[in-house]
């Protein structure tokens, strides 16, 4: 047992491929100054984004997480002091892999709880920083930003620092600009 623990940071990587991996590692390197950091690579983990009938039926029970892997992911989120999402936007929104992670992992009892009147109450009690690192090819990242920094934020009861790093039109920019963006992300996350 460790007596002194660093706060933990979770970086959720929801787009496969080298450049997003690079961005996730840049964010993690920045966060490492203050946090014990984990990168969760959803594609590499083989995460199944679509909720199965069994998972949906369990959702409103006292035991909503059927899959032990999903349970592990839920533990990571509940313990996290910092959440960062790295992805390429889809239709301006988060990609299905990340949407599925929100749907399956952030079940009742994880991101939120119900009070006696069945009203939703926030439950991400540790989180003090919330960030997105999003690339887009044509439709921007505005919807994704709103979903995460406003929607997900409602599940954090306390004060929270928010950051959003966006790289638009990734098909038209040079390698050098991509690398520069990764540096901006690393420095920004280090200065959180």
């Amino acid at each position: 047992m460790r007596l002194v623990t660093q706060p933990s940071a979770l970086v959720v990587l929801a787009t496969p491929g080298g450049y997003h991996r690079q961005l996730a590692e840049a964010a993690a390197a920045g966060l490492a100054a203050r946090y014990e950091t984990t990168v969760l690579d959803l594609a590499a983990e083989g995460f199944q984004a679509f909720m199965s009938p069994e998972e949906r039926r369990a959702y409103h029970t006292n035991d909503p997480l059927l899959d032990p892997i999903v349970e592990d992911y839920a533990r990571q989120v509940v313990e996290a002091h910092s959440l960062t999402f790295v992805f390429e936007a889809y239709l301006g929104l988060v990609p299905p892999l990340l949407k599925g992670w929100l749907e399956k992992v952030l079940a009742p009892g994880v991101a939120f709880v119900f009070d006696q009147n069945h009203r939703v109450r926030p439950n991400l009690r540790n989180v003090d920083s919330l960030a997105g690192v999003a690339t887009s090819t044509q439709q921007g990242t505005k919807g994704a930003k709103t979903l995460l920094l406003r929607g997900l934020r409602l599940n954090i009861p306390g004060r929270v620092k928010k950051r959003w790093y966006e790289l638009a039109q990734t098909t038209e920019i040079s390698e050098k600009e991509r690398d520069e963006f990764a540096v901006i992300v690393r420095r920004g996350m280090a200065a959180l």
Partner: protein
Amino acid sequence: MKVLLVSTHPCEESFNNYLAARAVEVLGRRHDLLYVDINHDSRDGLLAWAEAVVWVYPTWWSSPPARLLEWLYDHFTGPYDRLTKMAVVTTHGSSWRVNKLAGEVGRRLMTKRLPSLANPTCRCRWIALYDIDRATADRRTRFVESVEKELAAL
């Protein structure tokens, strides 16, 4: 009118699928209807045929389920000049107010962005039940009635 009905929910017995079944019944009376449950049907090219699209899905995390997002990304490429009408039938776990606070990204996607890829006259109706987890049977029944009425007038 050629109407495409796109629906998704993992559970056969869901309220969502009941709504989809009601929609099939109402729309089938007056229109040339094609019903696609994207959990079981991955047919392509349907949007080019449609003059109207009705979407039936549960709103989760203020937006369509992952499965519908992926379907839209793969299929809704546009522009669809024939497409002049859309309607969304959806349910929300949280209240109208919480959805406003969360920013309603799904509503914006379905009622603004998708119509922008259709005929310039295309408008999308938003037919939504909020706070479904606390809804009484009576409120659900009234919602079903309003869905039927709105779709009959599509």
